[in-house]
């Protein structure tokens, strides 16, 4: 086979120009900061609150996605009902819909006069322009991750283990908790991690509905943008590095998890 040297060379050069050099620039910039400066930026009240809002709400939203995603996968894979294929396709909408469009749409929907915002406001629940709004937007963008990672695993699950559990006297509930859930475990965790990673870094679909009140409903990516517009590049860089490190740790963990899940399959 010809072309290894050429294609590999081009791949590495292009990868370096577009991805590696820009990311290295960010890390280099952060090294210009003394550890003390770095710490002062990160421990400022506004930064800490922004990180807390982003990470905390992203985790809560990912947990909702884990539960609702599992229910959706179960319905799509195990049951036949009218509109199943349509709902299956709809799951991908948050992937495909530009984030700014999702942002303005969710805001219009959950604003006090919106279709869902009005009844919720009557019940005393304010969604748009509060942290709850951020939570809603993060749930929206996380939906496909859990569904699309768990769906193929549930589809490929060997029916015989369930039948064996059932015919050996396990109740349906016991079979689900002790037989099916452990087999889906790695896929569920992967979906959770991917939904979390996406929600932490999310910008477009969140900023319209968030209200963006410093210390209350200001997400970390927005704080980066604000610091940039104030020409406080050091602050922007420090926050970005923290977020970048966390997302690298997450990909690393997901890769490990996937490898571990694959190594389990032959044993069954």
């Amino acid at each position, binding site marked *: *086979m010809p*072309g*290894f040297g050429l294609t*590999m060379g*081009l791949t590495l050069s*292009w*990868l370096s120009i*577009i*991805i590696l*050099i*820009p*990311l290295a*620039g*960010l890390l280099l910039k952060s090294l210009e900061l003394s550890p003390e400066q770095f710490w002062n930026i990160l421990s400022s009240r506004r930064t800490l609150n922004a990180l807390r809002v982003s990470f905390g709400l992203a985790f809560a939203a990912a947990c909702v996605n884990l539960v*609702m995603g599992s*229910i*959706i996968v*179960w*319905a799509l894979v195990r*049951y036949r009902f009218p*509109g199943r294929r349509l709902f299956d*396709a709809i*799951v*991908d*909408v948050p992937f*495909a*819909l*530009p*984030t*700014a*469009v*999702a942002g*303005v749409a*969710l805001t219009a*929907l959950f604003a006090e006069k919106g279709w*869902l915002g009005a009844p919720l406001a009557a019940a005393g629940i304010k969604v748009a322009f509060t942290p709850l709004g951020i939570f*809603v937007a993060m749930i*929206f963008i996380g939906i496909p991750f859990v569904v699309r990672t768990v769906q193929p695993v549930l589809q490929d699950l060997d029916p015989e283990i369930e*039948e064996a559990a*059932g015919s050996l006297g396990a109740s*349906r509930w016991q079979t689900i908790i002790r037989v099916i859930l452990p087999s889906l475990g790695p896929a569920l965790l992967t979906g959770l991690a991917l939904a979390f990673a996406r929600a*932490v*870094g*999310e*910008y*477009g679909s969140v900023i319209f509905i968030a209200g963006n009140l410093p210390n209350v409903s200001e997400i970390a*990516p*927005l704080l*980066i*943008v604000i610091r*940039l517009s104030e*020409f406080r*590049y050091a602050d922007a*860089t420090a926050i*970005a590095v923290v*977020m*970048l490190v966390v*997302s*690298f740790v997450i*990909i690393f963990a997901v890769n490990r998890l996937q490898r571990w899940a694959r190594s389990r399959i032959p044993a069954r």
Partner: protein
Amino acid sequence: MTMQIADSVSLSAPDAKVRAHAAAARNSLRTEPRAVRIVIIALAMTFLSVFVVLPLVVVFAQAFSKGILAYLAALTDPEALSAIKLTLVVAAISVGLNLVFGLVAAWAIAKFEFRGKTFLITLIDLPFSVSPVISGLVFVLLFGAQGYFGSWLRDHDIQILFAVPGIALATTFVTFPFVARALIPLMQEQGTQEEEAAISLGASGLQTFFRVTLPNIKWGVLYGVLLCNARAMGEFGAVSVVSGHIRGETNTMPLLVEILYNEYQFVAAFAIASLLAMLALITLIAKTVLEHHLDEGHDASDH
């Protein structure tokens, strides 16, 4: 498969009855009571309707809330037209670049064995896990006035940030993995036999690629380009950081949605948003069709 059919043909009637009974019993071990099924389906459909269907419907409802004339007027506004044009130009540049890169990278990764392959794929995947805002920030740090190349660019009068090159770069960054990721598994699955045959028959490397490899992966290429394009046209965070928001010059469609929305021009904002929503819907439909083609190719190679 054929054995099963032969089996059931040779069955006598009572046997078939016993079998059907056994199958029903087996199925009952694998499903839930009717009430539970209905609750689960209802939960899933309600959740998807509230969080996905309603936001989509709202976009179109708001866009047409002042009638079709207001909608059309919003779309033919000079600012809207220039945003549409810029979005198309930027998408063409970044999809083109990533298409070439994706083909080259997939060839190197799928057709050869080498150490560090998983690591290389992880690097290609990086943009998927980087916040869009950070994807924009890295280019500000490189090319901004205080950036590493800032003063050099100013001396040579080259404008990257707050201009088309910066927007195209940031978009290329965020859409980097799409084509490569669509092609690598497909080309790995197809192996190298056909290419080796062509080369042993005297074809050159490029001839082999265009006559043998490309026809085999055409649906995969389309699939990657489709997803890459959807993301390129819809990218907001990264582009927002590098664009500078110069009206009529560096506003892409998603950026214009933001500006109009913040100016309370809701019909105009949602009119532009409706175009992007239609792009998303068309992308999803085309994706479903392409997945069908890719599955067929998969089945064909199995037999």
